Structure formats: C-alpha cells, structure tokens
C-alpha cells in the first residue's frame, strides 16, 4: 500500500510539472486523465466486482448535465452541482443495480446497454430537462478565489485531481475488507456467501461508488467541453471506450486502467496525427492482441508475473 502511494505521489509530482513542460499539449493530457479516472472508477464495478458494464456513459452525461443545467438554469456553482450529480448517480446506480443484479454475466452486460440507451433517449427527447438535442452552452462560471474555471490549466488540474482521487480510493479499497469482498464476489458468489458476504449488497456498493466517481469526472468533462450535446455524452461508444480502457490496461488492478488510458488515448492521438482514418480499426486490433496474448490486460499480466516470481523467490530462500 505504501508502495502504491509512493508511485501515486510521484505521478502527482509529474502531473504538476506537466503544464510547465508541455503547455501546448494540455487537452490530450486532460483526456488521458479523465479516461484514467473513468476507467479506474468503472473498474471498481467491472474489474474488482467483476460486473461488466457497458452503460457508464450514462453517468458521464449525468455529471456533465448537472453542471451545465445547474449553472445555466439555477445559477448553481459547479462544485455543488458535481456533488448533487454524485448523489444522483449513486441513487440511479442503486435503483439500476437493484433491478439488474439478479442477472448474471452477459445478461447483466446487456441490461446495462439497454438502460444506458433509454437514458440517452430521455436526455435527447426531454428538452425541458436537458436542453434537448440542440445542446447546452456553459457560458459563465463562477471564479472561486480568482480561479478562471475556463482555463485549460485549471481543467488539467481538476482532471489530475479526479484521476488521483480514483486511484487513491482503489488503493485503499484493494487492501480493505471491502476490496476482498469485491474480489470474492467476482471470483465465486457461492463461496463468497459461505464467507458471510452478501453479494448483492457488495455489488450495489461497488456500482454506487463507481457511478458517483464517474459522474464527478463527467462534471469536469462538462466544464472542459463547455458545450454539451446528449448524442455525445450518452453515446454507447463512450461506454465501450471506458470499459475497453480498463480491460486493455488490466481489470481489477490498481494501475491497469490508468495505463490503459495512457496507451489508448495517447496512441489514439498519435494515430490521429499519423493514420487519420484507421484509428478505431487499431483499437479493435489492440483488443484482439490483448485478449489473445495478455488475457489479464497489460498491467494484469505484469502483476501476475510479479506475484509468481515473488513466490518462486520466497521458496528458494
């Protein structure tokens, strides 16, 4: 745990230095950090609890819309809006999970797509709620302590704080009772029950935490884009992208989702410059490579080898 926090500390220092080193590459870094945070949050449910969701874009949209509508219609400061969004996301996840956690494996995954699609249609069609299909502008934002919330550097720091927060939470969870409950439920629900664990409650907690964190990131995303359209924010492909980021990096690992974000978004940016049209094709190929050769994801395989090696060494000595 101390080791992980040391790494995180180094990452924070590197993050703080970044805007000074690459002042012209902030947007891409913000994307990487947001995806790292989203994927890490997704992973609490998808990796640690083993419930594969393809509907998390719904929570991104929720967070972004709370900030935008809160600001434009109610003059609500974004930090309050984000807090409300997190509560709303957790409540939504609670209801959603209550209904769908009776389903196993692929059925649960399918149900997440269906629920997220219904949310998307509501966001598009209920203009009174969301500003409708034509979108919402965030035109003004408060300036707490003279900080310009429209500034890229501020966005960068918010995204950095978000991703660091999610990773820190996962580090703590990984060593905690809750973390072991999550893994037990993922591996074998019957066996978990025999250990006195109520799988539905554990999964619900994971879903609510995961949803609230993703919504927080969604709020930052909303400020970052400052123009929201439901088609973009509730997009099925965004859900898939979040899930793939975690899966390729390594599900149920502390650093896997962040590594996935760095690789996928970073390489996506390089492909954007270099290969133009083929970037999503390359996503597809990457998935196949990972599934065929690194079934636990990039960091998952590294970690597993490390565990085996450590054990081998301990038996020699």
């Amino acid at each position: 745990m101390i080791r992980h926090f040391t790494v995180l500390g180094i990452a924070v220092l590197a993050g703080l230095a970044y805007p000074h080193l690459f002042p012209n590459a902030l947007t891409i870094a913000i994307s990487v950090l947001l995806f790292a945070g989203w994927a890490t949050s997704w992973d609490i449910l998808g990796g640690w609890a083993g419930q594969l969701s393809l509907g998390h874009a719904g929570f991104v949209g929720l967070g972004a819309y709370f900030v935008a509508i809160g600001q434009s219609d109610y003059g609500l400061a974004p930090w309050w809006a984000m807090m409300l969004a997190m509560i709303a996301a957790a409540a939504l996840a609670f209801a959603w999970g209550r209904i769908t956690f009776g389903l196993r494996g692929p059925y649960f995954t399918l149900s997440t797509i269906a629920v997220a699609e219904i949310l998307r249609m509501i966001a598009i069609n209920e203009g009174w709620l969301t500003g409708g299909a034509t979108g919402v502008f965030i035109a003004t934002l408060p300036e707490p302590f003279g900080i310009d919330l429209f500034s890229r550097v501020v966005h960068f720091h918010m995204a950095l704080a978000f991703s660091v927060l999610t990773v820190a939470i996962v580090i703590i969870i990984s060593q905690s009772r809750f973390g072991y409950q999550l893994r037990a439920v993922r591996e074998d629900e019957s066996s978990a029950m025999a250990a006195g664990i109520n799988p539905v409650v554990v999964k619900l907690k994971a879903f609510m935490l995961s949803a609230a964190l993703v919504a927080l990131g969604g709020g930052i995303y909303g400020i970052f884009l400052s123009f929201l359209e439901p088609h973009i924010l509730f997009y099925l492909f965004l859900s898939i992208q979040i899930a793939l980021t975690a899966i390729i990096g390594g599900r149920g690992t502390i650093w896997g989702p962040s590594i996935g974000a760095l690789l996928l978004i970073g390489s996506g940016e390089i492909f954007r410059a270099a290969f133009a049209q083929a970037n999503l094709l390359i996503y597809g190929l990457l998935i196949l490579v990972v599934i065929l050769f690194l079934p636990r994801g990039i960091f998952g395989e590294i970690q597993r080898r490390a565990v085996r090696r450590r054990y081998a060494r301990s038996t020699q000595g």
Partner: protein
Amino acid sequence: MSELVPLLQNISNGLLIGGVYALIGVGLTLVFGVMGTINFAHGDFVVLGMYSAVLFNAVFGWDPYISLLIAVPVGVLVGIAVERGILARIADAPPESAMLATLGISLIIGNGLLLTFGGEPKSVQVSYASSTLPIGPVNISIVLLLAGLATVLVILGLYMLLNRTEIGRAIRGTAENRLGAELVGINTKRIHSIVFGIGVSLAMTAGVTLIPMLFATPSATGAIFTLKAFVVTVLGGLGNIGAAIGGGVLLGLVEVLGASYLDAAYRDAYGLIAFLLILLLRPEGLFGSTVKRV
C-alpha cells in the same frame, strides 16, 4: 372503421418488420445456444452482408437476392476463419473474453468497411423498392414481404439442418452437453467453427435482404443491428431458434405500435423496455420453455 384500417396496417407492418428482426436475431441466438458466446460483431456482419450486395450490384448489376449465392458461402468461410483464428484460441478463458474479442472484431469490420467504401451511405436501387401488394385496405410492402419470406425459408432451412442431418444432430448434441457430445465422438471444436460460420452467414443473409429497403453505412449501423438482435433473442429466449421468430415479431409489433400510438421519438425505448422487463421477469425468454431448445 377509420381507426381499424390503420391498426391493421400497423399490425401487418409490425409482423413483417418483426420477421426481419427475427432474421437478424436467429444467427446470434444459434451461436449463443451452441457456444455460449454473445457475438457483439453480429450487427457488423449484417452490415458486411449489405455491402456485399452493394458491391455485386455495382460491379455486376446483380439483384441483391442473387448476391446471396455468394454471400452465404462467403459468410460461412469468414465465420469459420474468425472462429478458428480467434475464438477457438480463447475457448478456455472466462466467457467475457469471447464477448470482448467480438467487440474488437466489430470495430475492425466497421472501420475496415469505412476505409474501403467511405462514409457515405450506399444502397441498391431495385425496381420493387416501393411496390406494395394491396390486401383489402392494407398495403403490404414487397421488400418487407420478400424479407419475411426469406426469414421463413432460412429458419425452415435451419430447422431442417438441425433436425434432419447428421451435422445438425452433432450441433444439437454439442449445445446440450459438450462433454457428452465429445464422449460419443463428436468433434465439438469443429462444430463450434461450423456454427459460427452459419451464424455469420445468417447475419450476412439478413443484410442482403435488408439492403433494398435500407442503406448501408459502415460504422454506426452495426451496433444498432447488434442491439436489435440482442433484444430479439432475449425476448424470445437466448439460444432458442424457434423463439427468435416470436421475439422478432414481438419486437416488431411493440416498436411499430409504440411509434404509432405513443411518442415516436421513443420508438427504440419501447423495445428496450420490453427487453428489460423480460430479462428481469422471465430470463428464459417468453418462449423459453414452450419451444424446443437448439
């Protein structure tokens, strides 16, 4: 009376569209029934079928239905190749690995088509695209009727294959009990390849029959068809061939009647809500216990 005619019209449209949905769903359900894999690339294979019809029409001027002569065997070969090259290699991995692999395949097909054909929608102009067959006051769309007939023929053919042939017996055996099938000498790996080949071929067939009324676009349409196929199969019962017809027809009716008498903007939501309800209340599907399993 004035209310009755539109209702009949809507019901007949719903039934026919349901037939098309059934055709999209049946391949997915066959693959799931035998292999336990949810194929996220199913819709992209439908789109691949559409493009094959577009291609043969552009190059040889063929009617879409003629291009089935090529699309069907090509589909089988493509499916076998994908199964051998990818899915068979991860047969022992957790089930979501296969699901994720098909997600990757979906991205590859969609964007491969985008690179090849460009982003503009493509369609095939047939003389009967807008023709109708009047039955009393109700007009039946010819393209929908043809697609419906194709569905019936395909499902009938599939039924014969599964129940009247040696290979069908082996497929059913593998679906029921893989280990047992292996014990009686069935090469279940080979069966998996064949089944995936048939699944892809069915998806491409659906694409070909759809092209006279729709248009092909490479990247977004695949996911929509995949979702429709899911809904159909869950409504009917995953892994259950006959029930795919029931599920498709049900979805067609729910959508058409919902769009006709409720808010049309929520059209897809009606199907999805039905899907969620069935998933929660009757996960074996509406027709799960009444129709013989694969």
